[in-house]
């Protein structure tokens, strides 16, 4: 994982309290929801709050690519780098 991906993975772990998951366990290309980390829509809501708090990013379900944004740690990291305002 790149340092940026590590930062995003750490944010997810903290936002949704994945107690049993270590940073090294996360495959940056694996799905965040369902099969991968097994997160659900409420976790998405928590992650969206954290993205707002840390990076000033506002996720909207109207965004055409919201499922792509949350596809994997790698995809989310790219999105954060492109859209962070702080």
């Amino acid at each position, binding site marked *: 994982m790149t340092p940026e991906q590590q930062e995003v993975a750490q944010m997810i772990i903290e936002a949704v309290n994945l107690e049993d998951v270590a940073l090294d366990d996360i495959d940056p290309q694996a799905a965040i929801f369902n099969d991968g980390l097994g997160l659900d829509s409420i976790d998405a809501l928590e992650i969206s709050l954290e993205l707002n708090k840390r990076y000033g990013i506002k996720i909207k*379900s109207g965004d055409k690519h919201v499922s792509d944004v949350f596809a994997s740690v790698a995809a989310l990291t790219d999105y954060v780098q492109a859209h962070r305002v702080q």
Partner: protein
Amino acid sequence: MSTEAGFDPVHAFVVKGQTHYTRAQVWQMACSLAERLPAQPCALNLFEDRLDFIVALMAVALKGGVTLLPPDTSTHTLNELTHGLNQPICVFGESPGLVMPALHWPRCPLDQTPTLSLSEIRLEVLAQAQLWLYTSGTTGTPKKIVKTWFQMQIMAEKAIQRFALSAQDTLVVTVPCQHMYGLETGVFWPLYSQARLVQSRPFYPADMEQVISEYPQAVLVSTPFHLKTLLAFDGVSGSVKCIISATASLPTHHAQALAQRFNAQVCEVLGSTETASFASRCFTATDFESWHLYVQNRLDFNGDQVALVVTDLNERYELSDALSAVDEHRFELIGRRNDMIKIAGKRQSLARLNALLLHCVADGVMMLSPSGERLDAIVVAQASPQAIRQALQHYMDPVFVPRQIYFVDQIPRTKIGKLRQADLDRLVEACRHKSESPCN
């Protein structure tokens, strides 16, 4: 039956982006779809898009059919609910893994070509069309609740009168249509009033922020869970006419914060899948006022039992809530009768204690300790157990203050903020197993 309201050809009913659809136009789409459905269809309506959902719901009802509204869309649940049905199911929406034979409508055809004059709609068929809803599974398997279109309309008209919904109002609903609360507020309230419904279902706080700014003075229908995330989101403000919350009690400090931030009237509605909403209460400067029954509803007290009597439908529902009457139209909610607990001879409702707990922690739930003599709590909080106990002393009799406090990162609530019994049981077991020496 005041049908005219539901066919209003003038006022906007559903707003989708820049496009407005009147009630008459939406019925026309439903007529068009109905022509393509089998007689007396049995349908599973899984559409998330509100306009699609409404058109499919109406179309099935026009054919005198049944619409199943599942509590969740897991393959297990869908197969459980459709098991044994003796005709192919019309499935509206995506439903991978369904065992029963089905006619699939992954998307809703929104065809407005007139196929039938609205005056040809057989109102007696529509009135008796059935909607099957399911209780949320707090007791195990989903329990089927049958409602007719007519019942839904009458229940909605009471709420419309209570909130004085008019052509000036815009409803923004964050709750899915498949739940009774979402079905009422996101379909029947706008349909039988002149209020307009925003088609989108805002999910993320940024969605809510956008819709609040697009539709100033909206009536925002949501849940305590969603409203809490809205408050946690930086910088969301704006002007909302009224915020309506249900499914669990809204903590008074959240009600106060919402009222101030959005300059809104904050109300709660009370109901269940069986009864639909039947009473409401509003937040005044510092607290909620008493619950007020909608018109033509009354309570029938018989010892510990309370029944809701819906006089204009000639129906009676035994309530599982413990209520005390204030006067003929008003009451206080003491809690769910079946979760009254007794500690050291003192009775209290667990639902009430759980609501009080939320004054002191971010989220949490209380349960009887293994001995059955004390209460324990599982909480999401930063504070120490000692500090939490101290804070709780301000809200409850010391006998109810939890002796063991387990810390978790999240309480596994459903999309609408409820905690299923099975999930709670698993959580309790995990906490007790993991923490031989809890943090206190």
